[in-house]
């Protein structure tokens, strides 16, 4: 796994510096720990401290230009850093900041915004969220209704965003809003930076079916934004969003959390021993039907892992287009649904009722809660695959060319909001 033998002298020096600096300073990795709970304030505080440690050691923003506080090194140095960081918990809560906001700013941000926000991000001072989805439209991102109007030298935002991971812990958000409703829907959007503590911002956690509430809904009530806090061009938000979404896909494919991306993952089939344990507990080891169910669960897990690895390899080598991540996403969803059905059939009533000890019957609740909605519904993944990979005709579009406020549905919706 370790690629130390490939190091140049310079790389070797960097490796030793990283090794030495992190030893004793960074918190150890706990394999049992949830990678990232954006509803857990303690974890967030710990990760802020860790990020500051990396900054102080010259290990923050390894590939970010030095002008914005980074190290200005190439990708090889990041791999070396990740190898050396393997024993530690890296700060996982900055996923939005590093995976999405940073590339948005580097590609489209003004010098002012870049110097204002990137170094603070690298020091672990700011947590970021992305403010894209709205209650009125999930898959139809660019049909958003949140309005931003220019009043004097300020932009004033009104509307609502939803499914914001960790919204209530965030300092800043990158927010797409409609600045010109009189043009077709893609053309009248602008990307802003919003101070989440600004007057008029209300943040409500969303309670999920299974408990937990690291998603939030935000309401913006005349929230003022300085004129220079536009990322990219006014009414050019769609272009910024393309960068944004591409980065999101790439990050999902390679692993959202820095430090969970192991540069050369061992490729061996892992069999979930819990399946076997369950069969033994139920006395079904020799039951042929149970064995068929378990064998299928083993197989679909393995196929999913192999497919993800293959798609990742294909994207990296250029053999597959970057949108191929949709194949993995769709298979993840289908595999999860099938797995819950197999395990439910295996355990029968024990899937829906258990003696106290756990908070809930896990297998049955998995069955209730396994849905691929966040991060793009299966429908959107199938659209991407069929239209971009298979080059099948696009859906007839009824809203692509008309001015946004002349679409019947929107005119009433915007009147309400």
């Amino acid at each position, binding site marked *: 796994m370790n690629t130390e033998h490939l190091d140049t002298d310079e790389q070797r020096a960097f490796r030793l510096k990283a090794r030495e600096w992190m030893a004793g300073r960074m918190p150890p990795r706990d394999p049992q720990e949830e990678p990232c709970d954006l509803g857990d304030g303690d974890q967030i505080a710990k990760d802020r401290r860790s990020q500051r440690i990396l900054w102080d050691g010259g290990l923050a923003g390894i590939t970010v230009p030095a002008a914005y506080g980074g190290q200005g090194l190439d990708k090889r140095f990041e791999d070396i850093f990740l190898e050396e960081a393997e024993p530690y918990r890296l700060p996982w809560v900055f996923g939005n900041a590093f995976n999405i906001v940073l590339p948005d700013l580097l590609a489209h941000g003004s010098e002012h915004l870049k110097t204002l926000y990137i170094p603070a991000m690298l020091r672990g001072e700011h947590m970021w969220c992305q403010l894209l*989805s709205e*209650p*009125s*439209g*999930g*898959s*139809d991102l660019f*049909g958003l209704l949140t309005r931003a109007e220019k009043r004097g030298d300020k932009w004033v935002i009104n509307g609502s965003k*939803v*499914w914001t991971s960790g919204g209530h812990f965030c300092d800043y958000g990158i927010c797409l809003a409609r600045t010109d409703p009189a043009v077709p829907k893609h053309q009248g959007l602008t990307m802003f930076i919003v101070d989440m503590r600004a007057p008029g911002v209300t943040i409500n956690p*969303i*309670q*999920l*079916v299974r408990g937990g509430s690291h998603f939030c809904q935000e309401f913006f009530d005349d929230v003022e934004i300085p004129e220079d806090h536009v990322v990219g061009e006014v009414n050019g938000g769609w272009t910024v969003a393309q960068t944004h979404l591409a980065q999101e896909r790439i990050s999902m494919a390679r692993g959202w959390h820095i430090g969970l991306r192991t540069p050369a993952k061992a490729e061996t089939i892992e069999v979930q021993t819990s399946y076997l344990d369950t069969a033994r507990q*139920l*006395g*079904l080891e020799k039951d042929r*039907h*149970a064995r068929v169910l378990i064998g299928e669960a083993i197989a679909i897990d393995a196929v999913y892992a192999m497919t993800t690895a293959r798609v990742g390899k294909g994207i990296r080598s250029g053999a597959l287009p970057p949108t191929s991540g949709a194949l993995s996403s769709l298979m993840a969803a289908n595999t999860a*649904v099938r797995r819950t*059905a197999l395990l*439910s*059939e*295996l*355990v*029968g*009533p*024990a*899937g*829906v*009722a*258990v*003696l*106290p000890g*756990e*908070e*809930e*019957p896990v297998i*049955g*609740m998995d*069955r*209730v*809660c396994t*849905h691929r*909605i*966040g991060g793009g*519904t*299966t*429908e959107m993944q*199938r659209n991407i695959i069929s239209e971009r990979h298979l080059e099948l005709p696009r*859906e007839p*579009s*009824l*809203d*692509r060319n*008309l001015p946004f406020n002349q*679409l019947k*549905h929107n005119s009433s*919706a915007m009147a309400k909001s």
Partner: protein
Amino acid sequence: MDVGLTEDQIALQETTRRFLEEQSPIGALRRLADKDESFDPAVWRQGAELGWVGLFVPEDHGGFSEGFQGVVDAAIVAEELGRVVFSGPFHAVATVAFAVAQAGSDAQKAALLPALVSGDAIAAWCLSGTGAQSGVEPGGLAVTTRGDDHVIDGIAGYVQDAAIAQHLLVTARSDAGLSQFLIPTDTPGVTILPLELVDLGRRLAHVRFEDVVIGAEALVGEAGAAAAQVERQLQVAVALQCAETVGVVDRALEFTLDYVKQRYAFGRPIGGFQALKHRLADHVTQLEGAKAAAAYAAKAIQDESPDAAIAVSVAKSQCGKWGTEIVRDCLHMHGGIGMTWEHDIHFYLRRAVSNEALWGTPAAHHERLCALAGL
């Protein structure tokens, strides 16, 4: 279940629906769950007063049906209960009322039935053990004799409403065969072990029997000869469960259809996208199959048809499998809002998933079908 209903049945359906919409809408379940409660005793009593339990009880014990006549009507009620994911102890009480009305002694009938009919008493039905196949056949409890008494040991698994019941109808096996006993829940040696559930509007428990000594007067039917009556009770229980699932799915599909017609994306109602349309067409087709199978099963039991046992397992196969499949996709079609506690759809999915798993998974009923077909 609108195909082939009589006028009286339509009236029963409408009365029940109106009562439930007023007294026990789905929102009531969320309010109960927020308080960590699982049902409202007052609503149950009112429902009982409407005659839900009396459907299985002859007139002289407070009801208004003889023999198996109440099964189709009870299935109509169960379907309505499913539409609001009702939380009261209908299945447990109805099954025991049916059992005692059919096989109980006069003393048992007189003592228990009027109180069940009025909603004053709750009874639970212990059939199976705790294994993965629990729910399709008797098991878990063994009975021996000690003098004139009977002694029960073992664990009855996944017993609905045991924790709120005053009476247990217990099925236990001896060398001679199956026997059934009607005993108070507080009989010495009986321990109720409540379970954590996926379905927040229901209560299940394992019931442990340790050297539980019971007098002969507690026997329901003949000692060692209860197999046929137990089979009939199982049929009633599963048929009512299937009817309930039909109601769950029917209602979930209804509001999902409303939703996809009103929710816009890309300038169109999402219900206009063919991928969703075609899945919904598949769903309504399988729901029609579930309605057909559930109705057939109830009718076959009521008519004492020779294919009643097969019909019940056919219904469970269809309702169990497609109940979960359809409601799961209904939730999916709601997108993000379907994943929130505030939306109703998860209560429907919890009930569908639970009904699939309890009283025999579809797979367990498939095996049973082979046995019934002589394989």
